[in-house]
């Protein structure tokens, strides 16, 4: 390769090869971000405002004032279908547990946000693509049932590729189960806020997520029923970039507001002020 070509290609490679433990590269603007700064900025690119996908516990720490008491964390998956493809389902699960540090695709519990006691559920896309299996459905149901008992508002952060294939119809039934729990929770006059984060699709979007009283979405989050690829295959043409973004849904009247992650806690507190019970 001649020098004039080799040099830039070499430089490009170096730029990409940053130490992932220390640095993250913004996939949108290419800015290299120091990880500690990125974490302090709630995983939002300081240059272009791109929202990185957030780990469930980082999210909880960014919202909850101090104590967070988890519920349902002792419920973990088994393998109802005896599923195996390239790997067995239990092997996939233990791989995801190791990588994500989570026992399932959702973390649920109770704590206070800006002094308001709430039930909080946070889904995490890093665990099986945030898919909803039996444990996901069970934990969300437990959260809604307990919040109903305590007459507390519920805030759930959605991030999901939909129902989990490896649990088959038992995964689909979690749509029915969470729906029933949401309905009871609401019938008693309790307040349910959902925050749609990137991405929220399929069985989660089409059950408890879009049943909430107030639907908030993070900036630029991809939200839809069918995945982009499925739609493109069906209609045999490329979709515009803006399609299925939070901003698109706001314009179409499907959600209440689009919020930058850095304003999210303040937004939730404002909403809770209308209905919540102040603890302090």
């Amino acid at each position: 390769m001649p020098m004039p070509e080799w040099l830039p290609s070499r430089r490009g490679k170096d730029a990409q090869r940053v130490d992932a433990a220390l640095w993250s590269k913004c996939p949108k603007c290419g800015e290299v971000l120091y990880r500690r700064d990125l974490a302090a900025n709630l995983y939002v690119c300081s240059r272009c405002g791109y929202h990185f996908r957030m780990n469930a516990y980082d999210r909880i720490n960014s919202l909850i004032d101090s104590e967070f008491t988890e519920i349902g964390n002792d419920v973990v998956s088994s393998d109802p279908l005896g599923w195996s493809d390239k790997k067995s389902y239990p092997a996939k699960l233990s791989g995801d547990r190791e990588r994500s540090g989570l026992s399932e695709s959702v973390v649920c519990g109770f704590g206070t946000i800006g002094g308001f006691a709430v039930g909080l559920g946070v889904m995490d896309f890093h665990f099986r693509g945030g898919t909803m299996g039996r444990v996901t459905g069970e934990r969300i149901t437990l959260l809604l049932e307990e919040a109903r008992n305590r007459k507390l508002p519920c805030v759930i952060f959605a991030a999901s590729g939909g129902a989990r294939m490896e649990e088959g119809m038992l995964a689909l039934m979690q749509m029915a189960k969470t729906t029933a729990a949401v309905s009871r929770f609401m019938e008693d006059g309790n307040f349910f806020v959902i925050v749609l984060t990137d991405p929220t699709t399929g069985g989660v979007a089409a059950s408890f997520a879009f049943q909430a009283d107030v639907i908030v979405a993070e900036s630029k989050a991809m939200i839809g029923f069918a995945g982009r690829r499925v739609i493109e295959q069906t209609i045999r043409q490329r979709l515009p970039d803006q399609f299925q973004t939070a901003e698109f849904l706001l314009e179409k009247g499907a959600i209440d507001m689009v919020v930058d992650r850095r304003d999210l806690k303040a937004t939730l507190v404002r909403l809770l002020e209308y209905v919540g019970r102040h603890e302090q």
Partner: protein
Amino acid sequence: MSNNIIVEREKGMVELERRIAELREASAAQPLEMSSEVAALEKKYRQILQELFGTLSPWEKVHMARHPARPTSLDYISRFDRFDELHGDRHYRDDPSVVGGFALIHGRAVMVLGQQRGRDTKENLRRNFGMPAPEGYRKASRLARLASRLGLPIVTFVDTKGADPGISSEEHAQSEAIATCLQAFATARVPIVATIVGEGGSGGALALAIADHLIMLEHSTYSVASPEGCAAILWSDASKAEEAAARLKLTADDLHRFGIVDEILPEPLGGAHRNGSDVVKRTLQAVDVALTRLTELPAERLLEQRYQKYRRLGEWQAEGLEPIGKAH
């Protein structure tokens, strides 16, 4: 060539059927010489039928559920004593892939709903191959709420590949339409009896299938995703659909074992379309029996039972499986 493997398999049978019919006609003129030949041919025919359709793999059942001649929702609804169709979502349009309205079944007033695919190409285009748009689910929600308020039991027929995945469906909030429909069914203060008569595809099917009593035809399927969709999602390869069909546990037997399906209705050898009239009749009888039992329950009890039914599906365990236990 049809892309339905059951239709392909039936082609040879059609030839055999034609010959039997011819021989029968001839034997009417000369009964002594021909009748043994007819009997032999008929025996052979039954043998082949048994061989081809006696046991069906999950993938074969997927094709059986999609068979173009399989009775559709309207084939069932048209056999009710009376049906007065209601239209529209009151917002935007009427979606012909969902049919619904007041009906009488065995003299009992009910609200009936079903996903409706086309019985030929022209009708399929009009009915979007039985894939409802948000407007279809909004019509279903509206009629389910109406039924709840008027105290009419809800009877549904499920037959869809899934909810429509098009641009306009996304623009009109398909997720919200299905989510709201699920809520309407979960909270309806009247008995709900649903029957999976063909393909039960994903959340688009579930929207009409939350029920106090769920019936499934023997060769119908009910699945978290279509086998093609599952293969595309997991392995980015839709051609592995047959493998996905086997793994997904989408047959009536599997789902009965899981406690998702309450009753399986046997089909004639070779599938429901071989004696559609009888299948429809037996289905309506089964629906009626379930309604008779469920209408005796007070609404509060019915709702509690329905809640617990779906509540338990998170905790279900089959024999020999490791239980849901404590995390390490």
